[in-house]
């Protein structure tokens, strides 16, 4: 009786029920990230206006994507950790350590005998193990994530320097380079990997129990615990997942530069966190979006591409970058608010 009116009122206010399916997915991703999309489009327009064909060239776009790929993979992993209420400052150092470890294996004498897949597996293993250590320190050792991963940052870089003796390790394993330098239907393998990781990350975050629990652990750990989720184990898994992503990023970086080095991954922590946060993931946890992160990564890489095409001085770039970041965030806020999200 009286409930019907109430229901009608409530329904009026409720957001439209979401449809599943790809079109809905794209629509909703674009919808929720209107501001970011607009910022990216404006940036591209800026690129076209100032650099014309040099910007709007397939090769150039592929260059942007290739550049985005490595940090993109790390950022997808970072999205999980931040959504789960954590933070990881050691990602760059883990990339460095993984790259050095894997390439030392490849360069030290064994070079001719090992299959390139061993390099890949080593990097993944090292990355995953570092993530595991972070996770255990944080979840079971109860060390604040910021400090634990800051410590890992120092330790992993130091270890990478010791292992590599501070030398750049050059990889000459033929199969490795051949595989990663290839293209699939004109799209470089690195970009394909990034796309697969992003898509996989989206599915994992939005369509699996793991993803649901990640939101819960980040949004309200006490409620998650009461719901029977093993918050600590889940936290360990989140950091391990990010570690794996770092290992993969290390492989991609080895492929791109043909080297492993203790200097790889410098300041990735800031870049990745910035991409994640600008994408709309809350630093306090509980809310995260892979699509936003991908847009965030693309905005940053496109930005430096446009700057370079325009031969801008580094200092001017820095000032402009600051301004553009603020504008992008303000745009995203205003537009997201308008679309009612």
């Amino acid at each position, binding site marked *: 009786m009286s409930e019907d009116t109430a229901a009608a009122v409530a329904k009026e206010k409720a957001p439209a029920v979401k449809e599943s399916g790809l079109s809905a997915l794209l629509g909703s991703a674009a919808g929720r990230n209107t501001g970011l999309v607009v910022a990216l489009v404006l940036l591209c327009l800026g690129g076209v206006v100032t*650099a014309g064909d*040099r910007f709007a*060239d397939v*090769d*150039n776009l592929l*260059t942007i994507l*290739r*550049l985005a790929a490595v940090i993109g993979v790390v950022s997808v992993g970072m999205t999980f950790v931040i959504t789960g209420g954590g933070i990881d400052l050691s990602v760059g150092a883990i990339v460095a350590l993984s790259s050095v470890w894997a390439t030392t294996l490849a360069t030290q004498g064994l070079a001719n005998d090992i299959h390139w897949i061993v390099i890949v597996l080593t990097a993944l293993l090292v990355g995953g193990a570092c993530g595991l250590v972070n996770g255990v320190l944080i979840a079971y050792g109860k060390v604040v994530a910021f400090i634990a991963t800051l410590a890992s940052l120092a330790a992993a870089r130091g270890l990478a*320097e010791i292992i590599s003796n*501070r*030398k*750049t390790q*050059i990889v000459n394993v033929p199969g490795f380079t051949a595989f990663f*330098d290839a293209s699939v239907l004109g799209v470089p393998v690195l970009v394909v990997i990034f796309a697969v990781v992003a898509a996989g990350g989206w599915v994992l975050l939005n369509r699996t129990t793991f993803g649901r629990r990640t939101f819960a652990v980040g949004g309200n750990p006490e409620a998650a615990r009461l719901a029977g989720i093993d918050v600590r184990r889940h936290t360990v898994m989140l950091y391990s997942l990010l570690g794996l992503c770092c290992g993969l990023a290390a492989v991609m*970086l080895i492929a*791109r*530069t*043909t*080297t492993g*080095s203790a*200097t*790889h*991954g*410098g300041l990735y922590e800031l870049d990745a966190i910035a991409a994640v946060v600008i994408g709309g993931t809350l630093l306090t946890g509980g809310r995260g979006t892979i699509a936003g992160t991908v847009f965030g990564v693309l905005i940053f890489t496109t930005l*430096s*591409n446009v700057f*370079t*095409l*325009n*031969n801008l*001085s*580094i*200092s001017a770039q820095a000032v402009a970058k600051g301004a553009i970041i603020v504008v992008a965030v303000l745009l995203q806020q205003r537009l997201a608010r308008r679309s009612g999200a």
Partner: protein
Amino acid sequence: TGNTPQDTGGGNQGGGVRVANDEPGEKVVIGFSAPAADHGWMAAITNAAKAEAGKYSDVELRVVEGTNDVNLQISQVETFINDKVDAIVLLPFDGAALTPVALKAMKAGITVINVDREFDSPFAARSTVLGDNYGMGVSAGTYVCEKLNGKSDAVVAEIAGIDSLPLTQDRSKGFADALSGCGLKVSNRVAAEFTVESGERAAANLLQAAPKIDAIWNHDDDQGVGVAAAVKNSGRGEFFMVGGAGSANVMREIQADNGPHKATVIYPSTQGADGIRLARLAVQNKSLGDLVEVEVPRQVQLYAPVVTKDNVDRYLPTAFES
């Protein structure tokens, strides 16, 4: 200097011929401080200094954490002063910023040897070992001019190192000055961060920015490895590259003549090692061999030679592995 090919073996770091001066003398404690080894050349500097010190039984070397925080580096020097070391070999992150504390050390009677980045005051160091950043640019520019041989519309690109460092500006200035000598100029310039990864990133963007290039000068061979990878990825090959600093990697590429690198300009990574030697001699009151002078000179400026396929064999043995 460190660029002379050595015949004594014992690794390719820190050359130097053994001379009478090498006979053990009174014990010398040397403190060594340098910026963070966040790239290969800087790591090589420290490694070479350590290796050099290891050769002398009368030298005790104290190496401290490399840092890009001038405040921390100042406190390291202060610690050396408290410690009453005999000499300090200092590669300052910022020469001017470390000047006051170097003056303090000199006043405390400690022999300060300034390496690479020059102090602001002539009284702050007993002796200064300088690379020649401006000269490096000039060497690279001159080589590019020769190689392009009057091609007046040539596109020359430059991949600089960390742009906020004065040394980068010196190099760029030398390069630009030399180029203008043959009517050329830098049409595209990007900056990287002395690391492989940043070199790759900067070069990938640069190659998009300039559809056709004739020559590229890259300030640093560490980032050069990345630059070469980016060139390979892009499949471009219409240009030649000149490196900087002179790493073994790049020299091998020049030797094999199968990559974009056709030359590199040496910026000796043995300056720290030279600093150690000078410090020891100055403390022990010995003179510099092969010089008539009785005292160690006030300043030694190292030469920035161009290494090409023709002379690479001479330089490769002392090149640093980055």
